[in-house]
């Protein structure tokens, strides 16, 4: 299967699956650990991948949330993410995709401008989160946020759907009126 579709499989009962895509292995592992340590009523499954497309030979549950982690220090991570985006079905972008940007703290090491990522998130109408994943405290907070988002995307929160997420997570930088 070359394209990830959000609704082509039935959901497992009480299970929520998140797919973390990034070239930064170490950061992903740490983030995955932090997420699994979180208190959550549903069963969490965390899949890690370097890039899409995923190999089709593995039997895999339905992915509820895709998090693309971009490191501002390396242009390769951005390139990788942009290439992987082509293998995601368009219906995923209705709130089930999130961009997580790390490394914004150290300006001198940044080779990608912040605006590039902001534009990318704006083009795909997805939520954009900033976090310094190397700091333990921030990582734990971000893991908590991602777990909440995952619960919403998996449909485990009655009354809130994944469609609400992009507008709810919109930062003050990009308001509705400025979009025009």
């Amino acid at each position: 299967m070359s394209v990830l579709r959000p609704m082509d499989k039935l959901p497992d009962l009480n299970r929520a699956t998140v797919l973390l895509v990034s070239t930064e292995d170490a950061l992903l592992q740490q983030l995955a650990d932090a997420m699994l340590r979180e208190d959550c009523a549903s069963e969490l499954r965390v899949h890690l991948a370097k890039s899409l497309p995923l190999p089709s030979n593995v039997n895999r549950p339905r992915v509820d949330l895709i998090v693309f982690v971009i490191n501002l220090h390396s242009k390769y991570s951005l390139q990788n993410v942009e290439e992987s985006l082509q293998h995601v079905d368009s219906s995923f972008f209705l709130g089930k995709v999130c961009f997580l940007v790390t490394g914004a703290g150290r300006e001198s090491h940044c080779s990608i401008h912040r605006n590039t990522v902001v534009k990318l998130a704006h083009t795909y109408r997805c939520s954009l989160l900033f976090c310094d994943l190397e700091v333990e405290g921030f990582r734990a907070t971000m893991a908590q946020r991602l777990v909440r988002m995952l619960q919403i995307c998996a449909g485990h929160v009655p009354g809130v759907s994944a469609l609400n997420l992009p507008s709810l997570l919109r930062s003050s930088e990009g308001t509705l009126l400025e979009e025009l």
Partner: protein
Amino acid sequence: MEQLREEQAAEEAADPGGERSGDRSEDRICLLLRLRAQTKQQLLEYKSMIDANEERTPEQIMQENQIEAKIEDLENEIEDVKSTFEMRNLALNRPFLKIKIKDKGIGDLENMNIKKRLQLKQASGSKLSQLQMEKNKQKEDLESMKDSDMIKTMQKNLQKEIEIATVVQHVFQALILGSKTNWAEDSAFKEIVLQLEKNLTTI
């Protein structure tokens, strides 16, 4: 390369205490209710996806005008939705703004002046509108008066009377001139003759 990690964070914790069965059944009921809510939400999501996919995009080639018209309609819809959203945001924020203004002491006096001015404006506006209405009423009454039948019959009668009087005038004039009397000598006679000359339609 893909890695898979699993962990179970199940809710059914084993109670070390004595009341196991009671607590467990409660836990199970809670779990079932939660699963029920989850399944409902997921069903709702799938249903909405199905409804969204039923809308087919036209496969035949549409004319450019139609496409442009459709694009304009969609843009207008987006504008309307955005404006209503902003209005609702403002409406929701209004109570917070009111509370903020109430907290300030000086702000109260300013509010009083503003309120009084507003009241005056409103009163003057209402008075002006009342005046206008009165004027319009009078105009309408006049115009309706013109059209009434009573006035027409009265005008007809007046016209008849004027004609009769004119005929009588002419008859008397003819009588006096025919009698060849000197009407200029007697002042009363003179006045009568001059009166007969008057054109009754201009009175």
